[in-house]
């Protein structure tokens, strides 16, 4: 795992700065709030895909910098707000890697090691959690997930094509449909695992 230090927070988002940012994201406050959340979610993923440690912190730092620039009076042409977020994010990626390279070189760190395989017990808890979470899906959703992951390699690919055809949707739409269910399951599993495992949920307290 990354041995990086947490990014320094250069800015804090005050009420008026946040208001300015939301104004820029839309006249309707609810819609602007949703856009804000969506931009943050995308930025987190972008930093993650770029291989940065602490993607959430970097996403927040990006938003803070953009908000402060807006407060300072930077005027963005209509529709260019995403470009602005992107250019600030790219700058932060560069800053992060430069800082990491300097730090790693100074400390002569070994390259990061692959994550360790989970201990048996933790693995069992995870499976129990997932099992419990699957129960939260409707029968049709559960069947879709099972059908999507059924089979090995080539057989699985063929199964997926047939599944898409049977649902009358293109492959990309099938992927997106399954990935949404997967994300729900993943969030549920994290909550369950964090709470100590499926047993808590299944048996209830005191059992």
């Amino acid at each position, binding site marked *: *795992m*990354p041995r990086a230090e947490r990014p320094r927070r250069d800015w804090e988002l005050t009420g008026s700065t946040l208001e300015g940012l939301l104004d820029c994201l839309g006249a309707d406050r609810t819609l602007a709030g949703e856009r804000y959340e*969506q*931009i943050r979610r*995308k*930025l987190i*993923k*972008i930093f*993650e*895909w*770029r*291989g940065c*440690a602490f*993607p959430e912190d970097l996403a927040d730092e990006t938003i803070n910098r953009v908000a402060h620039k807006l407060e300072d009076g930077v005027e963005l042409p209509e529709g260019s707000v*995403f*470009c602005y*977020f*992107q250019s600030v*994010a*790219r700058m932060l990626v560069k800053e992060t890697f430069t800082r990491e390279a300097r730090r790693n070189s100074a400390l002569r760190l070994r*390259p*990061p*090691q*692959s*994550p360790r395989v*989970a201990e048996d017990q933790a*693995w069992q808890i*995870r*499976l129990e959690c*997932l*099992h*419990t979470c*699957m*129960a939260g*899906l409707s*029968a049709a959703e*559960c069947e879709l*997930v*099972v059908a999507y*992951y*059924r089979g*090995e*390699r080539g057989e*699985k690919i063929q199964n997926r094509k047939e599944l898409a055809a049977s649902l009358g949707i293109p492959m*990309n739409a099938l*992927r*997106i449909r*399954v*990935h*949404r269910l*997967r*994300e729900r*399951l*993943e969030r549920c*599993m*994290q909550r369950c695992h964090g709470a100590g495992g499926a047993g808590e949920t*299944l048996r209830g307290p005191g059992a």
Partner: protein
Amino acid sequence: MTVRATPRRAVEYVIEPEVCARYLLADLSDEERAFVEGWLLEDDELFEVIVAAEHELIDEYLDGVLSADGLTRFEIHLARSHGLARRVEFSRALRSLVARPGRRRPDTSH
């Protein structure tokens, strides 16, 4: 790929599975990467396509079907990213559960 593209062409380019995989494996040029990120920030559907593509990539990793170069790139990323490591573990668990008949869905009817 030219950086100036019409929205339609951009969408078609980004949703290509090969482009998604190469983006996720850091195998695009810096210019192409920036192009993809610009569009996925702007377009919610493209963003979902790339998130879904990451799941596919994790499957390919667990199936052992990534190319040698792809595997190296994936493992470099895996070593750096807590989020990816968590998703790989989740996929392992999901595949394991799906492969176990009768353990997919507890009976909640009573």
